[in-house]
């Protein structure tokens, strides 16, 4: 059993690196962008599909679409079409179904095993031993962000002249890191066009990098709307964590080692759990197991 868990955790790192490269496979565009000193992004036909993780589609090498960005643009587009009396595009139901399918099957597992930004946070977390518990009130911010910035504002507060993906525009540090940093570095025109919002977005990115040193996976804990969606499915998903109460010694080593500071003994399927399986690895009596049913 212990070997199996170690194997699973070795697979986790491999899986995170694999998906980071898989979602950002268009190196040709990336290199051309640097060579020509011009902002260019991949025009891959695969961008019609969403990727299961936070990966900005404006990263020069990205070959898939961010589901959170896609939902916002679909809501923008739907509001615009309703205003103009045009036929609605039902493609948004595909995005909602795609997210619910993952949530219903494995809950937040892909946050731990697939999400490229989760991997970046894990790597930053390795540089620091600190993992302060973030109060519940701050953890609730991600639900407010999901409702307000991803759903309500893009649908109800739309500027007709420009589309308004409010989360991408004001908060998303993933877009700033994956798209903002490389594109602003190569393109002088973009640098000249940058202003207050650019500075604000880079400040958000900087703040979260600092927070990642203080508390592991700070972005997942506080801001991630995708984690908020999948977290709501943790209690009912097919994949679940269970505790063998008869062998558990309540040493709480699992809770100490949990990057998300989940109270595992109280609630092993908490909406905060990213199913990184660190608790399984660290349990001395192997009392934590996964079930798929």
């Amino acid at each position, binding site marked *: 059993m212990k070997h199996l868990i170690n194997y699973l955790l070795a697979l986790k790192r491999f899986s995170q690196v694999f998906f980071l490269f898989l979602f950002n496979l268009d190196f040709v565009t990336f290199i051309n962008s640097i060579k020509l000193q011009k902002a260019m992004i991949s025009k891959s036909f695969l961008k019609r599909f969403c990727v299961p993780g936070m990966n*900005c589609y404006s990263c020069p090498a990205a070959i898939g679409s961010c589901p959170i960005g896609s939902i916002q643009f679909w809501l923008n587009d739907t509001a615009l079409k309703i205003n103009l009396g045009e036929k609605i595009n039902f493609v948004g139901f595909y995005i909602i179904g*795609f997210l619910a399918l993952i949530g219903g099957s494995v809950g937040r597992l892909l946050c731990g095993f697939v999400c490229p930004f989760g991997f970046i946070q894990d790597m930053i977390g390795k540089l620091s031993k600190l993992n302060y518990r973030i109060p519940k009130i701050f953890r609730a911010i991600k639900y407010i962000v999901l409702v307000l910035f991803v759903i309500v504002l893009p649908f109800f507060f739309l500027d007709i002249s420009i589309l308004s993906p409010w989360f991408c525009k004001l908060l998303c540090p993933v877009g700033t890191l994956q798209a903002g940093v490389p594109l602003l570095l190569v393109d002088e025109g973009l640098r000249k066009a940058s202003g207050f919002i650019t500075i604000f977005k880079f400040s958000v990115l900087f703040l979260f990098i600092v927070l990642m040193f203080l508390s592991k996976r700070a972005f997942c804990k506080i801001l991630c709307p995708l984690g908020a969606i999948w977290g709501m499915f943790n209690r009912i998903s097919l994949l679940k964590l269970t505790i063998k109460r008869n062998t558990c010694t309540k040493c709480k080593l699992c809770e100490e080692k949990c990057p998300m500071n989940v109270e595992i003994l109280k609630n092993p399927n908490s909406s905060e759990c990213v199913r990184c399986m660190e608790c399984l690895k660290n349990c001395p009596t192997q009392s934590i197991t996964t079930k798929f049913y």
Partner: protein
Amino acid sequence: MKNIPAIIVIIISLSLIIFGLSFGSVEEGILQKAINICYECIGIG
């Protein structure tokens, strides 16, 4: 297979995916935006 809520969610989500792909346009709804630079993501615009 006892987990009825999860099975219901999976059936509904599969129906939504099929509905979305059948009656919606992926090209217009997702691809068109994703192949152009999202200036909002960078912090411009």
